């Protein structure tokens, strides 16, 4: 592993999603030098993959991409994508040291123009994680069409080392000799914006995700509703039929102690309502039913948004779906107790969407060496003074932004990023 000279910044922002970008821009605008480290290949986090935001139905990518561009172009922000930090140590007041690990893309980022000539010729096809496995991608690939930086990356795990990409690259950007680089880092404050993970529904065997092809996650449905969607339509995976009777199962992996996540994910009700509305637009003949214990429409305009979906014809049924079984034609039978009348009910749908919940990102805790960062009982970063200074963690100078501290929606994430940047600026200045 290569070693490089030490880098020094005012603030280290870990995570380049919407919260991390917002925090970085705020600080950079105050003339602080910020280093933003993103583990993934592109900035934008989860939000850049979404279709619309609730309850306004604004285009999600149209809000994210300008913010990402602003982050990238800001003179006070230095960005490391496909990089991680580790061994964060608080040496003294306003002095943290850390190690930045820049993972090899096997592509020279400065040379690559993103022309995708290599991607065109690459013989390997694997599942596309950015389309949530709905379609395939190549082993050398631009992560997704609105990725930033828009450069290719070689998925070395799946690469067969045929060398075609190297031959076709017009700028000779392919470089198989790249290695991980470790760069020592000194900063004055740290903002954790590592975001959340999505619940893996294969844990709930009785919903059949992974076994029944027409059971998909809400994120897979979200990808089918975005402008850059893979099929350019909404299709069910098993036979490519346009679904006309879609079911949403809420609280899949939220408010469920059996999967170790007893709390509400705060976004699933509303994103399901949003998707239902979008589906009624995309598939005018389709029926959409939402199976829920209750609808938690607690934010500004949320309840009206929910009422609007009822007005549009979305059906809401009270009762947690206990079991999904597959029929031969790929349709699915949902069994639940209708809480309104206490009757066991079985209904048939041709596509089931699991409204998967939000889980803490377990990696956030592992970044810190000394002192260790504390987490709360649900494994999110602990907010030690939630009412007086919400971004405050147990380490002074380390602040938390966005869903690292708990489930929240996009506006709340941006708000909390603002608070984290303010606290960080305050800490450095005093």
């Amino acid at each position, binding site marked *: 592993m290569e070693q490089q000279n030490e880098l020094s910044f005012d603030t280290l922002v870990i995570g380049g999603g919407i919260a991390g970008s917002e925090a970085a821009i705020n600080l950079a605008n105050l003339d602080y030098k910020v280093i933003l480290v993103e583990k993934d290949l592109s900035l934008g986090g989860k939000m850049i993959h979404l279709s619309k935001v609730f309850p306004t139905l604004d285009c999600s990518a149209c809000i994210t991409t300008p913010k990402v561009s602003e982050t990238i172009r800001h003179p006070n922000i230095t960005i490391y994508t496909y990089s991680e930090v580790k061994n964060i140590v608080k040496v003294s007041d306003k002095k943290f040291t850390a190690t930045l690990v820049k993972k090899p893309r096997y592509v020279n980022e400065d040379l690559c123009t993103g022309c995708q000539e290599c991607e065109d010729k690459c013989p390997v096809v694997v599942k596309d994680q950015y389309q949530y496995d709905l379609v395939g991608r190549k082993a050398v690939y631009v992560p997704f069409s609105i990725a930033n930086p828009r450069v290719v990356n070689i998925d070395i795990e799946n690469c067969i080392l045929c060398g075609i990409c190297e031959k076709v690259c017009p700028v000779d950007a392919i470089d198989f000799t790249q290695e991980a680089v470790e760069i020592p880092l000194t900063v004055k404050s740290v903002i954790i914006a590592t975001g959340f993970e999505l619940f893996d529904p294969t844990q709930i065997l009785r919903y059949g995700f992974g076994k029944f092809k027409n059971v998909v996650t809400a994120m897979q449905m979200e990808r089918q509703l975005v402008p850059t969607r893979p099929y350019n339509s909404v299709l069910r995976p098993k036979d490519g039929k346009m679904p006309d009777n879609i079911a949403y199962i809420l609280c899949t992996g939220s408010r469920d*102690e059996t999967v170790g996540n007893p709390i509400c994910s705060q976004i699933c009700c509303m994103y399901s309502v949003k998707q239902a509305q979008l589906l009624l637009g995309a598939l005018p003949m389709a029926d959409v039913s939402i199976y829920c214990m209750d609808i938690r429409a607690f934010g500004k305009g949320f309840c009206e948004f929910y009422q609007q979906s009822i007005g549009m014809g979305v059906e809401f049924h009270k009762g*947690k779906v*206990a079991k999904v079984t597959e029929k031969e034609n790929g349709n699915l039978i949902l069994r*639940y*107790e209708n809480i309104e009348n*206490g009757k*066991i009910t079985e209904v048939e749908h041709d596509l089931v969407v699991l409204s998967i919940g939000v889980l803490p990102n377990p990696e956030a805790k592992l970044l810190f060496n000394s002192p260790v960062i504390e987490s709360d009982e649900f494994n999110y970063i602990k907010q030690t003074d939630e009412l007086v200074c919400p971004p405050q963690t147990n380490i002074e100078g380390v602040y938390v932004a966005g869903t690292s501290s708990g489930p929240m929606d996009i506006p709340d994430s941006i708000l909390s990023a603002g608070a984290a940047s303010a606290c960080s600026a305050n800490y450095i200045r005093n």
Partner: protein
Amino acid sequence: MSKVNTALASELQYYGAKEFSACYNCGNCTAICSLASENNEFPRKMIRLSTLGLENEIESSLEPWLCYYCGECSSTCPRQAEPGELMMSLRRYLTARYDWTGLSRRFYTSEIWELGAIFLLAAFILVLFIFFHGPMTTELTAEGGVKLNTFAPWKTIEIGDWIMAAFLGFFLLSNIFNMYLKVMVRNNNVKIPIKLYFTTLWDLAFNFATQWEFSKSDNKTKIAGKQFNISPYWIMHWLLMSSYVLMLILIMVFLGWFQTDIIYEWWHPQRILGYYATFGLMAGLIYFFYNRIKKEQESGKHSHLSDWVFIVLLALTTISGILVHFFRIYGLPYSTYYMYVFHLMVLFPMLMIEVPFSKWSHLAYRPFAIYFAKVKSAAEKMNSKN
């Protein structure tokens, strides 16, 4: 009008139900249950009734008896409210409610009463033997066996048997009648033609003998981590039940033939039947102990004192019975006599407490509940036709 008992939730704690108030009414338990059906939707209904303290509605419910605790509801409950354990506790509670003497409630809710009664009845048997036992001869029969019938003549024991049987029968039958009143007479809006009680009688007999409903319960039973498709729980239960009934018939009806001083060949029906029964009992008991100690299945995770009393007493009875048999045929007089007394000291309290007042009463309540449910649904069908 419904009567609300605000203390019901805390009362049910004594019967074992501790978590059910965590329920947030999602209905997962009812929808996942393999035995819940239209007209018999449970367990959420029972959780609701328990949370609200509606004792009369609970008292007239048959649902607790239709549940065989496969545990699917408990293992998938998002609130870990243990619906399966509530159903189990309600069976204990109902046993206490059906019992008009009030003893059952004492036994279930007080460890002192339960254990005290066992020791008291055991002491009673001991005292009877101390004063009335026959000569303890060390002289052996021609075949080298112990003369057990000299120490405890089967005719005398049989008289005791019948007195006890009359006692058990009286309490159990009167409790069943009480159950009938609560379930079929009070709190019942459906008019039930008498004829139906006879036409569905077969269900009572069939379920009593086979526990067929139990075999339908979705029992994802694991033994040592291995999954089975059929319910070994039901098989083991049936093995134990059939052995127990066989043994009961042998000691109640054929005691003179069963408790003999003659040593038959090993293939003789008297020995074969005895061996089958002891094998069945031991196999069932080992399974039940394993279940409660290992806690792999939901049904074994929570053990009430009455559950342990049931299997411990049955195990002691079985083991002492086996020992009596071998001590006798191998000619060990004193061991035989003492073990025989011990055998009865366990057997007597077990039957006296368990059958009418505690866990074993389910042998009657379960088939009767299925029977009553059948009668009710048949009556509803007839009424809807008219």
